[in-house]
């Protein structure tokens, strides 16, 4: 983490304990994960131990400690999606990329995540590819979307 970036972040917050989570969110929005070095700097600045920061950060599912793939596939397994065979969508993605949820493909292209409810329940099952939401998925539709994506 460059010093410039950190100076910028420090300017945006008061440096109170309550800023910890928003600061971590900010760091993640810049780096896409929480680099070790950034946590160390945050600890010194907010006068909290690194230990405690890891304690807070690992509690919340949003924070990542490793870089992700270039494309993000999320399979929703909220209740409505579960009832409408969302599990099968996860299977398709797992087979396709040969990874488990939470992992990244070896070439760094794709990561896979299972999420609990994206709030589009009326269109279940739902899968997202990067920022695009796909509703009313089926095994075959999802395969088609991934085929199309992998071609480009």
């Amino acid at each position, binding site marked *: 983490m460059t010093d410039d970036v950190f100076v910028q972040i420090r300017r945006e917050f008061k440096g109170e304990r309550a800023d910890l989570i928003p600061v971590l969110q900010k760091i993640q929005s810049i780096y896409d994960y929480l680099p070790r070095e950034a946590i160390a700097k945050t600890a010194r600045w907010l006068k909290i131990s690194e230990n405690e920061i890891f304690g807070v950060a690992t509690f919340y599912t949003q924070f990542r400690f490793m870089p992700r793939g270039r494309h993000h596939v999320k399979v929703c397994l909220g209740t409505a999606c579960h*009832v409408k065979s969302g599990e*099968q969508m996860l299977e398709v993605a797992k*087979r396709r990329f040969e990874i488990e949820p939470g992992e990244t493909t070896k070439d760094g292209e794709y990561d896979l995540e299972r999420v609990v409810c994206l709030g589009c329940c*009326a269109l279940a099952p739902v899968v997202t590819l990067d920022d695009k939401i796909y509703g*009313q998925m089926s095994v075959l539709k999802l395969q088609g979307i991934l085929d199309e994506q992998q071609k480009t």
Partner: protein
Amino acid sequence: MNNKKLEARHRQAVKNWLEYTNNERPLIYVGAGSCGLAAGAAETIDAIEAFLKTRSLEADIVRVGCIGPCYLEPLVDVKMPGKPRISYSNVSADGVDRLLEVFFEKNEIHKPHLVGHFGPEEIDGVPRFFEHPMLAPQVRIVLRNCGIIDPENIDHYLARDGYRAIEKALRMPWKEALETVKNSGLRGRGGAGFPTWRKWLFARETESDQRYLVCNADEGDPGAFMNRSLIEGDPHALLEGMLIAASVIGASKGYIYIRAEYPLAIERLRNAIAAISDLELLGEDILGSGFSFDITIKEGAGAFVCGEETALMASIEGKRGMPRTRPPFPAISGLWGKPTIINNVETLSTLPNIFRNGAEWYAGYGTETSKGTKTFSLVGKVRRTGLIEVPLGTTLRSVIFDIGGGLVKEFKAVQTGGPSGGCLGKEFLDTPIDYENLAAAGSIMGSGGLIVIDRDTCIVDTAKYFLSFTQSESCGKCVPCRVGTRHLVDILKKICMGKGEMSDIDKLEKLCAAIKGGSLCGLGQTAPNPVLTSLKYFREEFLEHIVNKRCPAAVCRDLIVYRIIKEKCTGCQRCVQVCPTGAITGPRSEAHNLDESKCIKCRSCYEICRFDAIAGDAIIIES
């Protein structure tokens, strides 16, 4: 800003609204809430823009929030000058040209995909939008603006009597305002149903130099999206409600704790907060009343337990979101030890309606103990899915069959209250929905998710699903919750695999009692509800798994097989092409074979046979 200036601003807003509704240029509304976008609204908007550009036509496109019937998304409404607004369903990008050509080139009303019009007049062959069978039985109070106004335009909210209620509330002494809330009978819409006024009174009567108001928008229940839709469609209703609540309890600082997974809702809130800051409806001495208030948005970082109020406060304070013992209740000692009121989005957004129209008017809806209306997200195997609002006391039957249009297959159960609620079978269809009835049935109101289940959904699998969820979301503080839910999941998994024993049922019930009794917060206390209710109302299905090693719904993977019905199969080879493991073989035009040992039960062949094959339905899944 003082009252006079607000009055002038209102007049301006009404003028703008009239100009907008008596449009001189054609108006095209697109439902662009998260659900609309998931259904392809962004592509539809691109197609509309392309249509207008290639023909050099002029029209305004308005991105409105969700109006309710999500299954009809993307919804596109066209309002030609001097004509009423007419709504069309499922307008995908390639349907745009056909729709708009009729309006712009033939100057007629397009008929396919027609839903209804919003005008006051009768139009031959065009029904009214709100007479649609999904909408007619509803009473839209908190959702009154959703899908109607442009959520990004504060004038639209103002023109529909927006920020009139806060004016009224500020003119009342706080006790009178509190009395209004008391008389309305409003109870917390986040699930527990605690009387809103009573909580407020605790906070108001606690001596303190600082009080806080927190809006809980951490809608974590999987299967529920009411709060998201409400904020996306009408953000100002929430802000006005927060102003009212803060003025009554004497809070000068407010937080909105909202899920980071709702980027559009967050953006709408930021815009709305900026708009009312410009109008000085936030800040010091609001409307010259001496009341000061400002609002900060806190993005939740993804933890279901943070919907619990003490965990939510810990999270705002920058800590792990773990609940603590109560008392002291947050209303006495909350954020940083100060009196704090935590209200749900819907509770707060209802307040402007109560102050505008009076407590008695609001209390006129609902039942003796549960007043007013409630929003629900109606999803699952019901024909018409979406966001609805009905008076409390409406029966489940009316919601599922009248509004939801029933199911394609036979009704089996409805899950209310998310992972903290329960699965209720058909004996509950005529139960009026209110706080007491749902609690008596072993479920809860919850925030309002209604997931309808048909005979293709396995009850044991559903219970396993909910428990896996609460297990992974348990914060780990209380041993019965942390370890107990894990054991529940293990036993349920065992039953789903066909390895269950009769003694497991007894074990489940004992564990559930221990978890309920030994957990500190609502998550642990209610986590066993899905297991307990399904054991109570669907015990045979558990026994079927344990004794006969069968899954009647043909869901549990270890208990099902895929089979080709030879008589139906035409040998079209579509399934052979999609099978990833080569389990299906057979020459063209002859019935195919499915090798069970190679089959991974991925469902590809089943889907292609139903939707794409020549015969259709030749592949079945059975237990």
